[in-house]
């Protein structure tokens, strides 16, 4: 491999990885705070893409506004779904929470996917370009949309991170994820935190979907790939470890770029999976995981 190929792969991997970070963070957060293995996470990505598409085409909004609107849409949908499903489930649940909530998210995913198919159809809905053009970067020409999409992802991750670290609400969310009963005793309203957490996680996914619309058009089952990629990341670094998803996302992005270059695109998942299996063999809790109780 000469150096242009290597930098090509690195840049490609990092651009990809940025999106995985954005997706995986929300997934990890929801698991850490609510103990929900979210199977519907990809559907919020799909919703984000559709929101942005309709905002651009029907609403005629400029790309930046469309992406913001998609984020808000994701937030509202996430909050609604939390109130309608997990809230009553939590109230009625007696044990088996992880499995039961997992199945509820599966139901949600099924509903959203098929509703989209029924209402919008299966054809691709995309925009040819957001900003257009390309930028020369380290001797490579990369399309502006990719770069801006990546920057949006990084900005969202950074803002979200600051929110978690610096604000009162963010601290409350982290407190719940560390010790739910303790947080409750400190006067944190669990119900509000749960709704907010799920809504924020959905918002991040929706932003990811919206930001990539000009590269990946919207279609009903588009959420599957980002969903399992983000699960790859989360399992690789360890469940509930939000910080580590940042490293994990880029890692998976680069691994994929390299393996699809050297073996072909169809083998990239096989390679990622083999790496995950190796990690699980050596360290069952993931690269940076804490011990999970059996």
């Amino acid at each position, binding site marked *: 491999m000469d150096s242009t190929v290597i930098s090509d792969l690195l840049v490609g991997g990092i651009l990809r990885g940025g999106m995985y970070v954005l997706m995986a963070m929300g997934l990890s957060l929801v698991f850490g705070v609510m103990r929900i293995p979210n199977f519907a996470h990809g559907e919020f990505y799909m919703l984000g893409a559709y929101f942005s598409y309709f905002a651009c085409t029907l609403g005629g909004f400029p790309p930046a506004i469309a992406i913001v609107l998609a984020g808000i849409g994701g937030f509202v949908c996430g909050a609604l779904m939390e109130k309608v499903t997990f809230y009553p489930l939590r109230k009625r649940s007696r044990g088996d929470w*992880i499995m039961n909530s*997992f199945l*509820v998210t599966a139901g949600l*995913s*099924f509903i959203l996917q098929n509703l989209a198919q029924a209402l919008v159809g299966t054809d691709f809905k995309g925009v040819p370009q957001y900003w257009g053009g390309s930028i020369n970067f380290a001797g490579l020409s990369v399309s502006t949309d990719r770069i801006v999409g990546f920057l949006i992802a990084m900005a969202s991750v950074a803002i979200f991170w600051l929110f978690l670290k610096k604000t009162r609400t963010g601290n409350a969310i982290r407190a719940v994820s560390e010790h739910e009963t303790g947080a409750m005793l400190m006067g944190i309203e669990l119900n509000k935190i749960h709704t907010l957490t799920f809504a924020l996680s959905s918002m991040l996914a929706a932003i990811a979907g919206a930001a990539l619309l000009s590269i990946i058009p919207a279609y009903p089952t588009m959420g599957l790939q980002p969903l399992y990629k983000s699960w790859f990341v989360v399992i690789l670094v360890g469940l509930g470890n939000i910080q580590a998803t940042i490293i994990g996302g880029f890692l998976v992005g680069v691994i994929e770029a390299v393996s699809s270059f050297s073996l072909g695109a*169809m083998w990239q998942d096989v390679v990622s999976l083999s790496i995950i299996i190796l990690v699980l063999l050596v360290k069952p809790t993931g690269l940076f995981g804490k011990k999970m109780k*059996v």
Partner: protein
Amino acid sequence: MISEKSLETGFVKNLKHNLGNFGLSPVAIGLFVLLGFAPYLIGDEYILRLLVISLLFGTLAMGFDLSAGYIDVANWGYAGLMGLGAYTSALLLTNLGISPWIGTLAGAFMAAIFGLLIGVLTLKMDGMFAAILAWFIGLILMALTTSLTGLTRGALGLNVDLYFNTGWSKPYFYVIFVICIVTYIVLRRVTNSNLGLAFSALGQDAEAARTCGVDPMKYKVINFTISCFVAGLCGGFYAHFMGILTPDIMSTKHTVEVLVIAYIGGRRSIWGPLLAAFLVVPVFEYLNFLMEFKYVIYGLLLILVMIFYPGGIAHFYNYIVGIFNEKKRKLTGPESNPFA
């Protein structure tokens, strides 16, 4: 020892006890016998085919329940493993000319081996890990069958020879009928045995089970492997019943279909999922005209069952029997549940 006087009742009781060991209550036997005559009672090919599909889904759901109900692992790659069984059998037949009967078994063993590996890797941790790793493997198998067109013809579909030289459903009905009964008996027998006790203990409180001397890895892996075996077995049947295979068979939506049936039927019962298949499959077949909305209903049903009645039909039945027994106990003193 049976005294002369109570020979008759003693014999009946013994028989009942022995059948009970195979998980067969008189009601279950009655229903199975009735079902066995169905091809002679029902002339309509369409309905018979529907029965075959119900039996197939019922068997799949029973296998699913073994893991989901007993050790609390909802196998998210179940459809992938079923597809693995199907493609194994089909490819053995088309490439090596191996009989579909042997192929079906080979497919089942193939799925079981995958299940064993997934289990060994992940069952040390929360059940969710096994569910998700199985899902990854299912997705990858699906991607590989789609891309390896030289071997599987990908999305074009692989034509597979049927078990018999006929497209009529009757002989296939008896094949899946036998698979279903054997699966039912084996699973009921396993779950009613000490093995089942270990499964239940691990599923309900793994830490307490360990202090009771139950080796968590060993029994969870056994359980998961058997469950995957059933998936592979059904896959083989599917291949030689439908005559064409596409990678779509491994799609997660089929796992959800099986799962909805298993959960409506009721976890931890084996019979509940089987019964539910005969209710759910025909209803959804009837609802086919709704297209995508059919799956929306599937999703809604799943959420509603999980929130409002996670015990399903089996739990409802146990609840009724409980009330009945309580009345009887008050009248005649304690007696064990004849259906247990």
